[in-house]
């Protein structure tokens, strides 16, 4: 298994710059997820890694080889596409063996490898059928099987689960992870689904507008988002934000002053973020850990089961908070409720650049 290195990789379609200098290292055996909103360049990065799009500038290394100018077939990779891309005129067995046939492996070995992979995925009884006779989930398995038989040095996945229904998607996640581990593979996986990224990735690469916003483990991405964009993109419901100006060791905001550790100099315009789970009842939070206690007027409550989402207003901004069901009676529509924010749960970003300032991005 090989690692991947992208060095200052750029891509333009005509005058449109879709990738602006990507630097990324994926370690061998790692499961790396490229995550971002549509149009952020994640799929383009993957397609360039596969050799399906030529790079405008920069280098691509797979293992110890510079593959920047190599054809896809020379890169020793396997890829699973969102729409599965099964050859409609071939049987499942032929589909899975096609890449090996192209590499002129003996028929017996092809059959053997196809059989092994099919058993692994539980699709042995489908081998004689054609793609159109299969359900979406089955086609997905075949597409994965086709990648496995190749025993490539790198697996690429382009939103492979997004055409499946919700239940199947969750099942396939687990299964894909198990496969990744048992094959000891290196995987680069593209998705726009943050839940998928959080549950599957060793490392997440958050991309936005052709740049990498942050690279880190799922918990780093969630608890220490490096920028406003990442903070707003990860987490559901999304992080709450309020703009303010630093003065006197506090941040003055339209909803009240909020104290925070390691503030930049006075007069700096900042954005403070806090997640919906990070509201406390004032009594539950010791004074020294409290950043601020603010008044919110309740607009409505959505019950999700054991928990509920409270939508509240302060100033002219809506905030969302998550509370356990047993506390929800405190949030009657129209009521004004004081809630506290914890100092160590705040995220501080420079308003101008969106860069994280506190707590430091360590």
């Amino acid at each position: 298994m090989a690692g991947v290195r992208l060095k200052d990789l750029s891509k333009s379609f005509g005058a449109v710059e879709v990738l602006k200098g990507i630097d990324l290292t994926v370690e061998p055996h790692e499961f790396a997820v490229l995550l971002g909103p549509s149009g952020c360049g994640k799929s383009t990065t993957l397609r360039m890694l596969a050799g399906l799009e030529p790079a405008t500038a920069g280098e691509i290394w797979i293992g110890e080889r510079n593959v920047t100018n190599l054809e896809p077939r020379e890169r020793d990779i396997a890829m699973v596409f969102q729409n599965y891309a099964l050859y409609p005129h071939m049987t499942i067995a032929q589909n899975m063996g096609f890449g090996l046939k192209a590499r002129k492996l003996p028929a017996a070995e092809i059959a053997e490898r196809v059989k092994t992979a099919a058993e692994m995925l539980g699709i042995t009884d489908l081998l004689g059928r054609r793609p159109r006779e299969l359900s979406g989930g089955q086609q997905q398995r075949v597409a994965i099987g086709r990648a496995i038989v190749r025993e490539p040095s790198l697996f690429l996945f382009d939103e492979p689960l997004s055409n499946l229904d919700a239940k199947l998607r969750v099942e396939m996640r687990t299964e894909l992870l198990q496969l990744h581990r048992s094959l000891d593979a290196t995987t680069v996986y593209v998705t726009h689904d943050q839940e998928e990224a959080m549950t599957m990735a060793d490392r997440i690469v958050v991309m936005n507008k052709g740049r990498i916003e942050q690279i880190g483990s799922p918990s780093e991405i969630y608890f220490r988002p490096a920028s406003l964009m990442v903070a707003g993109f990860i987490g559901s419901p999304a992080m709450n934000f309020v703009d303010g100006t630093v003065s006197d060791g506090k941040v003055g905001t339209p909803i009240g002053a909020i104290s925070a550790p390691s503030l930049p100099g006075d007069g700096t315009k900042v954005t403070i973020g806090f997640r919906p789970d990070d509201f406390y009842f004032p009594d539950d939070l010791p004074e020294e850990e409290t950043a601020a206690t603010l008044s919110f007027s309740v607009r409505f409550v959505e019950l999700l089961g054991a928990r509920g989402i409270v939508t509240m207003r302060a100033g002219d901004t809506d905030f969302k908070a998550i509370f356990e069901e047993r506390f929800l009676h405190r949030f009657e529509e129209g009521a004004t409720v004081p809630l506290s924010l914890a100092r160590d749960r705040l995220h501080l970003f420079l308003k101008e650049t969106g860069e994280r300032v506190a707590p430091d991005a360590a």
Partner: protein
Amino acid sequence: MTNTVGQSRLASLVVALVVALAIVVVLFPFLWIFLASIKPASVVALPDVWTFSPTARNWNDVLLGSDVPKNILNSLIVSVVTVSVALFTGAPAAYSFSRYKTGAGFRFTILAAEMMPPAILILPLFLILYQLGLIDSLMGVILAHLTFVVPVITWFLIGFFDDVPRELEDQAMIDGYTRFQAFYKVILPAIRPGIAAAAVFGFVLSWNDMFYALILTGGESKTLPVAIAGFWTFRGIDMGKMAVAILIAVVPILIVSFFIQKHLVRGLGGGAVKF
């Protein structure tokens, strides 16, 4: 939106009757021509003879004692060669138009070529072939037929290529093929039904043409449609034999066309009209 639910019995009956009437209108000419082909010469020209003792004489005369078998062979050669050339030149081009969106101008040119009135091309083609000494040769007819079969087949295939997801050739390239190999080892086989339909449609067009063949042939190289027209002359007609020739020209086409009916709409749309 098949709307048979809640349709009254009477309405269904009326629908069935009208459709049946339309079927009769379509089938009657075939029936009448078939009867003419097995009627004895004495009654073939009478409009109200329904009972007679059938004869195979016309069929014998046409198949064994006329030029029609030669005309059939001519037509076959022309159609097969024309369609083959059209596929070899049209398929790669259609793929390029579809996959690379190669110039909207090209697409328009193909459509315009497809719709080109034959009147504009027949004059120069005739003169060119005349100078090359190719009048009354199959080669000349083939060249003429290429002018309409090639654009039609290309236009047809664009639509089928448009339906192939781009990932299919991406996958083939990752599986180990060059782009061109991906085209002929994966994409072409994947649209086999579309290619078959385009080929059959092109064959039908070439087989059915009389205009070009009438002007460019005359003797040895007459195709079947020209030969059919020759049965009705100023000296009189031989209705029985003409009926046989018509059936020979028409029945095989009806049979093959049956298989392409469902692909026809996609093809005619040429990647532009999505139904």
